[in-house]
């Protein structure tokens, strides 16, 4: 029973951490507008990070969900605003279903960015109201809240096939009948888009199982990112509480501040347990994986939101300024909470997946 990354994973985490810290020595990575994302993406390709979970045959590292989650945690911790989650973590996974491996190769080289186009209408992840359809190899419909949609080269689209069953489809951004309408977002590092398909050619990647798998993985990786973000907020708060003096004492010696920080630690550590266990379940394709992911996403997104908000409270006035990075974490926390199934949605999902009926004492 080892709740710990292996050596390769630990090394990769260090590499990614150093890479992101080094992207901009003054940490203005935290101000997305100041970072050259194109250069960063190319560097990530050089480092081999864009083939993390690609087969070794195409130069990838063949990392499983634990490895991917381990790195997304670091990326969330450093607030990297790239489409790594959708392009690499999910894209490579989804495109492994494709007979044609061109896309996979392009991703690994850094030449192709992918995003998911799933949500419609109000954006419920329950997907019961999805109206996009595929008829004769062409896709019709409109997708909302597509992350980084304006810059993506390829969309992974969930739509209904004949019989109303859900399927997963790949659509190139350059295809005919496709309109992208970019939208500014509250989180400056996460622009959105609305994508309209009017008879756009698409390639089928899989059916309901593939959709379920991809969405579960996306929630898992988003939870891992949130875990990293939550830890960053805790660290910011603790370090400020040690340094900042008021009333002649470091504010971290006041119980009110101490207790805020203790509550943050409780949430961060709980999120860590939930995320790691879910990643482990996904890696071993355990039957309860989806339930574990619902738990992980509920716990980690709540922890991130709580820690970002509490960090603001501990920091006081400075945290309300644009110059201090904590607002970026706060905005991201709100986004991650809402875009990948908010906690109350995840609790409903947890019940539907048998969370109230399973025994407690299986192995974790």
């Amino acid at each position, binding site marked *: 029973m080892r709740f710990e990354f292996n050596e390769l994973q630990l090394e990769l985490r260090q590499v990614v951490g150093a890479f992101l810290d080094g992207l901009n020595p003054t940490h203005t990575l935290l101000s997305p507008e100041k970072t050259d994302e194109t250069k960063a993406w190319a560097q990530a390709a050089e480092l081999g990070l864009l083939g993390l979970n690609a087969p070794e045959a195409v130069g990838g590292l063949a990392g499983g969900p634990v490895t991917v989650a381990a790195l997304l945690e670091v990326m969330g911790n450093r607030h990297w605003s790239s489409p790594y989650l959708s392009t690499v973590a999910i894209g490579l996974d989804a495109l492994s279903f494709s007979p044609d491996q061109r896309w996979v190769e392009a991703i690994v080289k850094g030449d192709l960015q992918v995003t998911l186009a799933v*949500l419609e209408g*109000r*954006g*419920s992840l329950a997907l019961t109201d999805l109206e996009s359809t595929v008829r004769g190899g062409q896709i019709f419909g409109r997708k*909302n*809240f597509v992350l980084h949609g304006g810059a993506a080269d390829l969309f992974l689209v969930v739509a209904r096939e004949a019989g109303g069953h859900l399927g997963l489809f790949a659509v190139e951004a350059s295809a005919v009948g496709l309109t992208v309408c970019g*939208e*500014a*977002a*509250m*989180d400056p590092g*996460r622009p*959105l888009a609305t994508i309209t398909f009017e008879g756009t050619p698409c390639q089928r990647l899989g059916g309901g199982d593939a959709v379920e798998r991809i969405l579960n993985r996306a929630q898992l990786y988003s939870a891992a990112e949130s875990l990293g973000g939550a830890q960053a907020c805790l660290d910011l708060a603790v370090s400020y509480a040690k340094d900042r*003096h*008021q*009333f*002649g*004492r470091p504010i971290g010696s*006041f119980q*009110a*501040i101490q207790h805020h920080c203790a509550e943050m630690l409780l949430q961060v550590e709980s999120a860590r347990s939930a995320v790691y266990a879910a990643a482990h379940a996904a890696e071993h394709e355990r039957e309860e994986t989806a339930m574990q992911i619902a738990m992980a996403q509920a716990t980690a997104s709540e922890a991130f939101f709580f820690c970002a*908000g509490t960090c*603001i*409270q501990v920091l*006081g*006035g400075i*945290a*309300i*300024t*644009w*110059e201090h990075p904590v*607002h970026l974490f*706060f*905005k991201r926390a*709100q*986004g991650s909470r*809402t*875009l990948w199934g*908010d906690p*109350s949605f995840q609790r409903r999902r947890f019940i539907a997946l048998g969370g109230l009926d399973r025994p407690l004492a299986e192995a974790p």
Partner: protein
Amino acid sequence: MDLSLQTEDRTFQDEVREWLEEQLAGDWQHLRGRGGPSDEDALIEERKLWEQHLGANRWTCLSWPQLAGGRALSLVQEVLFHEAYAAAQGPGRLGHIGETLLGPTLIHHGSDEQKGRFLPAIQQGTDYWCQGYSEPNAGSDLAGVQTRAEVRDGQWVLTGQKTWTSLAHVADWCFVLCRTELGSQRHQGLSYLLVPMDQPGVTIRPIKQITGTSEFNEVFFDGAVTELGHCVGAPGDGWAVAMATLGFERGASTFGQQLNFFNELQDITNAAKQNGCFDDPLIQDRLAQSWMELRVMRLNAWRMIHHLQTDQPSAVGAINKLYWARWHRKMGELAMDVLGPASQRAQTDGELTRLQRVFLFSRADTIYAGSNEIQKTLIAERALGLPRSAR
């Protein structure tokens, strides 16, 4: 128990409503609803003219004594004015810092000369004021101010930095708490100086906020000067005067603020009904709780007014700031949950939406003017008489 209004108060209320309704038409019509949160910088010059119009018609400084240029109206009538003003969407006030903070301070602690010089200009809307208290290293702990002033060539010369100064860029004057005795500590050796803003030694820098907009400023004093006579109270007595200033806010404006809250919550409720999430019992439950608490907040405020009027100590007054700040922050979170993923979308011009700004800026509500933590300690020590905490 009689919670209805007295006849004379109803009459006053009718008069206010009627006057505002008439005046906020025609030339002033376009000022309606402007200058609120995140719109502070709209139409400054016209709003100043509007305030002069208010002053000329004696709708400013309602609670000041008549000798000071006010109307000595009761707190209830002041409340009714604020409610009516908010209901009529009167433009965001610029003169309230002079009217509610500096004015009463001068009335109680100013020299006759200071009263004569400054009070009429506040009442008439010709002088605007800002408050120079907080500093980067003196936030919750105001006694840590480091801005210095010394007498040189027969005038005060100031050096230092203030922060979180609202409306500094539209103000003519600033009342500044600063250290005038070299080497003095904490509450000792501070003075309360009135400093003109339009001079080379004063630099104002807006603080870009979490919302991308600016409500506050940094103010730098670098050899800024003011007359010797512009010290309120004796030099060295600044702490007492500054604390008195904070005590003058009588809470009438909280009613106007509540009407803004009402409008925000109504928008959220309508959004929930439109996008269908009103059917979610969890959202309904949170909306109902938020509405109930807003109503309770208003009842609390009325009880506070009653206590103030009858000179009773007011436990309910002590909780007001903590209550509304926390409520508003929670409302901001509810707004985002109601909108769902759409909460992430900014406006087409890239600016944040009103509810996004409320969500973000309400995090400041629990920090400024005494953070939640400071408020709870004050409640414990002052309203409940618990022993002072170790500081």
